């Protein structure tokens, strides 16, 4: 999550859910928390009962709005304007937390003279824009002098080149009137919200912000989160109780799956995957190691990871096996390789607990792509759409695909459920929680760990039998894990490796922590000495190969005392110390140095968390700071690593230790958030001549086209959302009678006004059409959805739950068939929360008649590129290198 990562240092929620109870005001935006995270919302209600004001900003009046004190409707995809408006309001009326902003943020840092703001030109570009490459270049964004470690600062915030003045100017046109014009939020409501937030700021009070994919799934998702980060920094709410930004994650371990990534561009612990050209380890380390701050330890973390991967085969001589790691040659994210699939360049695929046919944008392309694979492995609890697309997909029903023509060879492995295997999830607040195994899985059901383990054994055997140098990485792979009676690897053994150990072997034979801190006897499958004592935390990791750690940020979860802290189950305090393990170092509220004044005293009795007790940092949480570093510590010139971080700089992952209101490095689409319209929008940008996010990755293709701004064929704004009663693509809910009966059919939420325009009644069938496809749903007419009045024009919004598909107990059209494939510049995420559509009353024609219907309302022929700002294929930078050819 670069939004949070670049602003504060770590890509994770800054606080714990139960800490919301301490907030004086909670802003929920880009999330229907009560619906998608009901039990987390428990703490919002606790705060409300303690007198906090709950604000919900959302296109829908959802179950969250029903419980909020204030609900503000907003046009999907205009959040930056609303939040920017709040920022402007705080600055104009001097309502920001001055002392916090001056000392803890980079508001005072001086920018280089080359920095150019969209305000300068008004066209919506920052300095460094390269129109050919569709990317920002150069380093005109960095601080004056180009040194991130020791920025020049003006603590009066008056210097016209300082971040604060630039910020003020950047958002100067984001007025309440503009907010009404663009978002449709009336000024009186805007002021009410601004007042509530400003009132919950300062030494005595804090406010929290909660968001979910309602913010991330936009063409500028990262920048929306950035805007919230700036807001919270101005209000002085980061690192303090009842403050922070809570990213609400939609899956049990989605945080875990980025910490220990199954993602192409990073290694465990947010280490960068080597790219083509990072030829040697040294070259690679030079590229990614920072001079000051925690990231100065980069080599220690990477080498420890390589030691965990390749064990004895990782030696000083062979760069610790750095050469074994594959190198990236570009963007290899899902959408990129999806297009490879469509073009027949992909041979095989593994699907483990994901159902792209329903859950990923442009379902029709997803299904076609699967049908072009040579082989497909699906591991699931039930026969999901992605496993039976070859006989039950809409395309088969419509004759677009023929079962007997589909070459794909499919292996369906029944998976083990959460009670049938052990292991840890990392929840939305960075908390590792271990699951004990209750029973064996039924029949052929097995865990993913079993699958990977058994596969690894087979492949490594093949590699050992061959002498092909290309198989060297496989031969080098350290696969030492002991097994249980089913042939599953012992998951605590994996956790031990993730935590890390000293590599010098000490064989004890004892199965588990025999005092000396060696786990699992320190021996491998063959009984040979394998590893030494556990490390107690990432502070112990070394770059000389003497330590191994599978994921440095998790280090400390399974230390020398042999206690699996993820499985700790005795909570001592409200933050839950003693229950699970919260990375990093069991810290529950990160950057908590900011909960104390610069001089180390708590801001207030009411909001105390950690403080300086004259020789060390102490308090209610694990201090996120060097234990003995005094508040008045000043690094001497040329200091490196953490020593370069002064005693009053809470954000120690940043070179300057400051919270970044302005991001001088690390983002592809600008140091400040800027409003751009969604790729598909009924209106054009009121603020700048540029409509859409400049470096956006479009994925132009004949079946993935975008409607131009204000296209009269698609007059309505479409947004998608989750129901409490269902889970994501439905594999875990649509097949269960007790959940399915609660929301048994696909529906579309529309306003009474729109219903009248369409001459539709509640419960009637309607078809929703976009350039990508058409689906049918029952009309749920309700005042919960209401038209927006912007710029004197009435704009209707349609909201669709996205859980339904063609398999399971209850079935219905998949909303994702309507959405387009596109990539936010930093993380390549699709814009699922805002696009334009048309609504046609009546049932959707079945069989071959469908194509005719679609063509009538969304012509499928003609030019592929309709949006004026959409690139022609050959000028695509980074993503979307693929093009419209490819015959599907």
């Amino acid at each position, binding site marked *: 999550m670069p939004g949070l990562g670049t602003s504060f240092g770590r890509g994770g929620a800054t606080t714990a859910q139960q800490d919301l109870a301490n907030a004086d005001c909670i802003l929920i935006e880009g999330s229907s928390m009560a619906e998608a995270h009901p039990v987390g919302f428990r703490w919002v209600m606790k705060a409300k009962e303690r007198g906090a004001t709950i604000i919900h900003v959302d296109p829908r009046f959802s179950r969250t709005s029903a419980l909020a004190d204030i609900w503000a409707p907003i046009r999907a995809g205009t959040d930056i304007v609303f939040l920017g408006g709040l920022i402007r309001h705080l600055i104009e009326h001097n309502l920001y937390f001055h002392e916090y902003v001056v000392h803890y943020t980079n508001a005072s840092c001086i920018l280089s003279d080359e920095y150019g703001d969209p305000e300068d030109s008004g066209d919506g570009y920052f300095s460094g824009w390269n129109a050919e490459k569709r990317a920002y270049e150069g380093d005109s964004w960095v601080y004056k002098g180009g040194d991130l470690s020791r920025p020049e600062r003006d603590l009066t915030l008056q210097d016209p080149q300082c971040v604060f003045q630039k910020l003020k100017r950047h958002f100067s046109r984001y007025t309440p009137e503009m907010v009404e014009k663009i978002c449709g939020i009336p000024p009186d409501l805007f002021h009410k919200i601004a007042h509530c937030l400003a009132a919950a700021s300062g030494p005595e009070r804090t406010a929290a912000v909660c968001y979910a994919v309602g913010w991330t799934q936009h063409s500028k998702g990262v920048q929306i989160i950035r805007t919230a980060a700036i807001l919270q920094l101005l209000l002085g709410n980061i690192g303090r109780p009842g403050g922070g930004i809570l990213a609400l994650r939609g899956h049990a371990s989605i945080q875990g799956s980025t910490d220990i990534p199954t993602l192409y561009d990073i290694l465990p612990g947010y280490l960068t995957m080597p790219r083509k050209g990072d030829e040697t380890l040294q070259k690679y380390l030079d590229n990614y190691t920072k001079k000051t701050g925690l990231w100065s330890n980069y080599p220690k973390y990477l080498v420890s990871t390589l030691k965990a991967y390749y064990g004895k085969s990782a030696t000083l001589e062979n760069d610790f096996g750095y050469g074994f790691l594959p190198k990236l040659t570009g963007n290899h994210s899902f959408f990129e390789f999806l297009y490879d699939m469509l073009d027949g360049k992909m041979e095989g695929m593994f699907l483990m607990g994901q159902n792209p046919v329903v859950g990923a944008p442009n379902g029709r392309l997803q299904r076609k792509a699967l049908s072009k694979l040579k082989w497909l492995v699906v591991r699931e609890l039930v026969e999901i759409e992605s496993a039976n697309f070859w006989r039950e997909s809409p395309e088969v029903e419509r004759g677009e695909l023929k079962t007997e023509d589909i070459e794909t060879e499919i292996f369906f492995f029944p998976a083990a459920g959460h009670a049938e295997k052990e292991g840890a999830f990392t929840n939305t607040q960075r908390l590792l929680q271990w699951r004990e195994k209750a029973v064996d899985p039924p029949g052929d059901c097995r865990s993913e760990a079993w699958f990977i383990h058994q596969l690894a054994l087979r492949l490594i055997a093949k590699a050992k039998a061959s002498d092909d140098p290309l198989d060297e990485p496989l031969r080098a792979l350290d696969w030492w894990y002991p097994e249980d009676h089913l042939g599953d690897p012992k998951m605590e053994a994996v956790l031990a490796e993730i935590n890390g150990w000293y590599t010098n072997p000490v064989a004890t034979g004892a199965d588990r922590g025999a005092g000396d801190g060696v786990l699992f006897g320190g021996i491998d499958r063959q009984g040979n000495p394998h590893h030494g004592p556990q490390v107690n935390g990432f502070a112990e990791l070394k770059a000389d190969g003497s330590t191994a750690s599978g994921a440095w940020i998790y280090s400390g979860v399974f230390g020398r005392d042999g206690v699996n802290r993820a499985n700790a189950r005795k909570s001592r305090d409200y933050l839950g110390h003693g229950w699970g393990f919260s990375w990093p170092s069991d810290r529950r509220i990160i950057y908590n140095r900011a909960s104390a004044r610069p001089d180390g005293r708590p801001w207030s009795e009411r909001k105390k968390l950690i403080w300086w007790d004259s020789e060390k940092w102490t308090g209610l949480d694990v201090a996120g700071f060097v234990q003995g570093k005094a508040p008045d510590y000043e690094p001497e010139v040329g200091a490196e690593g953490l020593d370069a971080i002064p005693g009053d700089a809470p954000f120690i992952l940043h070179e300057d230790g400051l919270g970044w209101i302005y991001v001088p490095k690390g983002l592809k689409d600008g140091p400040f958030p800027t409003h751009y319209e969604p790729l598909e929008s009924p209106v054009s940008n009121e603020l700048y001549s540029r409509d859409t996010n400049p470096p956006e990755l479009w994925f132009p293709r004949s079946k993935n086209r975008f409607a131009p701004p204000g296209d009269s064929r698609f007059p309505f704004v479409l947004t998608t959302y989750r129901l409490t009663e269902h889970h994501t693509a439905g594999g875990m809910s649509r097949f269960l009678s007790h959940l399915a009966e609660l929301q048994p059919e696909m529906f579309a939420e529309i306003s009474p006004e729109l219903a009248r325009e369409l001459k539709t009644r509640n419960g009637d069938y309607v078809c929703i059409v976009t350039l990508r496809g058409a689906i049918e749903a029952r009309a749920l007419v309700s*005042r919960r959805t209401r038209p927006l009045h912007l710029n004197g024009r009435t704009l209707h919004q349609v909201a669709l739950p996205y859980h339904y598909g063609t398999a399971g107990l209850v079935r219905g059209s998949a909303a994702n068939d309507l959405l387009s494939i596109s990539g936010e510049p930093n993380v390549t995420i699709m814009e699922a929360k805002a696009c334009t559509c048309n609504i046609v009353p009546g049932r959707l024609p079945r069989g071959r008649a469908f194509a005719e219907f679609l063509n009538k309302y969304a012509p499928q022929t003609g030019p592929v590129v309709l949006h004026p700002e959409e690139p022609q294929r050959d000028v695509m930078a980074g993503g979307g290198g693929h093009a419209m050819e490819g015959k599907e």
Partner: protein
Amino acid sequence: MIGEGTHSTNQRRHNYVQENVEVGFFTDPTVCIGCKACEVACKEWNEVPDDGFTWSGNSYDNTGHLGASTWRHVMFLEQDRQKGSQLVGSHSLGNGEDPFRWVFLSDVCKHCEEAGCLEACPTGSIVRTEVGSVLVQNDVCNGCGYCVVSCPFGVIDRRPEPLPNAGGAFKCTFCYDRQKSGLVPACAKVCPTESIVFGRLDDLRARATKRVEDLRQHDYNDAQLYDPTGTSVRGIHAFFLILGEPETYGLPPKPEVPTIYLKSAWTAAFATAIASLIVTLLAFAFSS
């Protein structure tokens, strides 16, 4: 022991059955988020079958009403009224001119002080338990269906074929089995916002009265307690805080236990019997 010493009464272990303490539910819509966890938890614990897969179009309520296979039912009311001092986005800050609110309330068997079903049951299948709840004994009920028409709240119903356990009458058991083991009923235990509170009846009544007062002070002018103590039902053990009138929740404003009709009905019956006797005897007397 898991569950010892946690704050909410919804998690604490208890001995109410052993100590013959009257218990109840207090359900509060002002903190309900309409998540339906109570419906699911109830069905999971009590192994209640699904109640059909029909989409109603009535807001988010696809359950409809309590019945033989629905023992908890979350209602979704969309009303043109203001909820407390809530501001809902519109050009008039929601208040006055253009009000709107969405209210959720989890309905359940009321476990009446004077229970119609209990009085009506001819087999003694329905009994009053140690904790004052009303329990249908599935192994005794012969499905005569008389309780169905005797419940003033339309809660209990006979389960038709082809559902499992068909033929008998079913309703909320107040998780009697759980309570006997010192556990809290499934719906209350699961409720994320403690909109459903389980506890001693007297405590709950006090808590509820206070809650209504607090709400009224915070502009919830139409907040009231639904607990018909004034009628022959003489109060319910699962009572509700409601916003607005009972009718909008499908709750009878003045529920009566049908036994109050017995006196007049039996009088008429005996009168008719005697009249018939006399008339018949007279008829024969004259004819001979």
